[in-house]
Structures are given as structure tokens and as C-alpha cells.
């Protein structure tokens, strides 16, 4: 744990201090948001479209959306800040993020669905990599595919479909058994889950894919992190606490 007397408070940038691959997106930092994909016109007000969201990890994995109608909207209530995805055609993509040298990655997003839909909330490689999605009336689901498919879906009264969640998943294809391959926390706890897929994701490495946010999701996002490698239990707790403040979630 960080944050004691004389110790700098935690920020997600510390997760990348040794050159780890990945990305950190923070809609509360309006200086990282631009209306156009080229990053020329800054977002300045609630309701502006977002065509560019800067990566704060230091890796330069910025997200863009070049199609005007597919840009999410920056929203704020004066305290919290988020991107609103309309559930029709809004999404953002990064360029390729290469996680192909390893078997593990942390994927976290603080988000809330506004309406139930078939939604990929955050994905790196979609069904061929790692992602967190909800389908129809399904609850938050982690998917890992490094040769075959494993999924873990929340099945817990504490996790209704439209809740506001920090979904924090440590993926690791080198592990055996779905719950170890897809270690999914929601708002800091481990929900009861259903397990699905072929039974094991395979033990291959992760891929070299764009990271996507909000594809087909009617969702608000308070921030997201992707980090290659294994993240410690303590750092995952720090991430949950950090995003709880950003999203107004009570852990």
C-alpha cells in the first residue's frame, strides 16, 4: 500500500513505472480529451464529442474515433467526469497494443451500463483475446482466448445488470482453471460466478491488438486501465480505490 506519511499517493501511472506495456485513460483529466481524432480541438465543455483520449501510462496508446457520429460524449456533473457511449455506434480504439510477449494482463474499467444491450465494454482482441462484456441480460463477463475460450460471468445478487462497477480482471493463460485464468473482482469483491467456455483458455500468449472501449455499449466510463503482466494484489486494491473515487463507487 502507498499513501502513508511522506509517500506519494497512488496513481495508475505507478503501474507503468518500469516500462510495462498498456494504457491508462482518465476522462476526469480534460486536458487529455479532444473533439477530433487528430487531437487538434480540445474538449472544453459538458456535451462535447470526444474523438481523441490521451493515454496517461506513458506508452502513447491514445484512443481515437475518426467517424464523427461514433464519438462518445464527455459528461460531468461538476464532481465526476465520464464518457457517454450512446449504445448505437459509439466506440473508441487505440492503435495496436502488443501484449504478445506474455500470458497475463490486468484489465480494469469503472463503468455503468445505461441500458441492457449486447455490449463489449472493453476488449483487447475481442473474442480472440481478452475482454469484459455483457450480452443481452447477462451480467459482467470476462473472456480469455489464447487458443480456446474461457469465460467467467458474474452470477450474484450484488451485481445487477445496470449497476455501477469497477470491473477489475487479472487474466493469466498460464494458470489452470477458469477462476485462476480470469480473476474477476467487481467493486473490490469476488462475486459468485458461472464458468463457461471450453474449460481452459489455452496457455498461449496474449496478442497484439487495439484496445476498444464501448463497442455497442450504452455505457458511461469513468476510466480504464490495461497493463501487461501480473499486477500484485496490493496494486489491484489501489486501482480499485483510485477508480472508486473517480466513479463514486462505494467499495
Amino acid at each position, binding site marked *: 500500500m502507498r499513501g502513508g506519511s511522506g509517500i506519494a499517493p497512488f496513481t495508475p501511472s505507478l503501474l507503468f513505472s518500469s516500462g510495462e506495456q498498456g494504457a491508462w485513460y482518465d476522462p476526469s483529466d480534460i486536458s487529455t480529451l479532444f473533439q477530433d481524432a487528430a487531437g487538434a480541438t480540445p474538449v472544453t465543455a459538458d456535451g462535447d*464529442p470526444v474523438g481523441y483520449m490521451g493515454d496517461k501510462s506513458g506508452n502513447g496508446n491514445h484512443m481515437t474515433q*475518426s467517424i464523427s*457520429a*461514433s464519438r462518445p460524449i464527455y459528461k460531468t456533473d461538476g464532481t465526476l467526469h465520464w464518457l457517454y457511449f*450512446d449504445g448505437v*455506434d459509439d466506440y473508441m480504439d487505440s492503435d495496436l497494443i502488443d501484449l504478445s510477449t506474455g500470458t497475463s494482463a490486468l484489465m480494469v474499467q469503472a463503468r455503468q451500463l445505461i441500458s441492457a*444491450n449486447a455490449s463489449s465494454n472493453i476488449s483487447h482482441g475481442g473474442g480472440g483475446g481478452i475482454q469484459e462484456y455483457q450480452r443481452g441480460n447477462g451480467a459482467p463477463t470476462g473472456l480469455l482466448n489464447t487458443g480456446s475460450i474461457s469465460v*467467467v460471468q458474474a452470477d450474484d445478487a450484488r451485481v445487477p445488470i445496470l449497476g455501477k462497477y469497477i470491473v477489475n480482471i487479472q487474466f493469466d493463460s498460464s494458470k489452470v482453471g477458469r477462476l485462476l485464468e480470469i480473476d474477476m473482482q467487481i467493486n473490490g469483491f469476488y462475486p459468485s460466478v458461472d464458468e463457461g*467456455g471450453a474449460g481452459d483458455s489455452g496457455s498461449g500468449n496474449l496478442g497484439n491488438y487495439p484496445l476498444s472501449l464501448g463497442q455497442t455499449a450504452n455505457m458511461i466510463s469513468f476510466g480504464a486501465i490495461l497493463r501487461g503482466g501480473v499486477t500484485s494484489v496490493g496494486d489491484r486494491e489501489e486501482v480499485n480505490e483510485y477508480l472508486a473515487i473517480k466513479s463514486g463507487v462505494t467499495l
Partner: protein
Amino acid sequence: MSNYTQRVTIATPIAHIQDANQLALALGESSADDKTFTSASYQDAQGNLYAVASTVAKPIFAQMAGQPLKAPSDSPDMDLAAATRAQSLLQINNSIATPDVIAVVLGSNDESAQEHIKRLGLDHVPEPEYKTNEVAK
């Protein structure tokens, strides 16, 4: 306050997607706007298919949509004839979605795309109810 004070939702019948993408290029803000309408994933009560786009817009949108079109500077070679064909089919706040018009709902930016789609008389083409042993795209 944002200049994007309106939300516009557009239902393009599947037969007019190509022309509507040229119209989006003429009215939009990006040279990539010819990719605005992609999959026809919505349907009306008769099962006719539509590609839908929804976005926030500036108040000038309705005025621009009614004026003679010009190729934007970032897409000088766009197909103006196709865009004009699509423009002639526009019905703004005047029609539910039908196969012979491009129906548009224009409202304030606090309205949701889902409200607009309901006003257009459309539903998402049903997707299978996924279980944990099925695969997302």
C-alpha cells in the same frame, strides 16, 4: 456550454446506405464520415432493415441538411450526386422509419439515442441470448 446542443438520430434503409454515407461526409466533420452507416442492425415492424447512426450535433445541422450540398475541403472528391440523392429522402421529425425515406429525429442533447430509435419505430435485430459457454464477437 457545449456547442453540440442537439442529438440527431438517423435511420437509413439498407438500400440507401451508400448514398447516406456520402451525405454524412458532406454534413459531417471528418473525412472518415463515409463510414457512418455500416451494418443494418435495426428493423421496423415489417422486418425492413436499417442502419442507424446517432450523435450530438450543432444547431446548424438542420439548416445545413436543407441547403445545397458542397464537398467539404477534406473530401473534395466525394460523390455529391449520391449525397444529394440521400438528401432528397430526408424527413426530419416528420416520419417514422420506412424504406423510402431517411428518417431523422432531431432533439435536444439530453435525449437518448434509445428514445429516438423508439420514435423511429425501430428495434434492434434480436441477438441470441448468450450463455457463459458461448462466445462474444
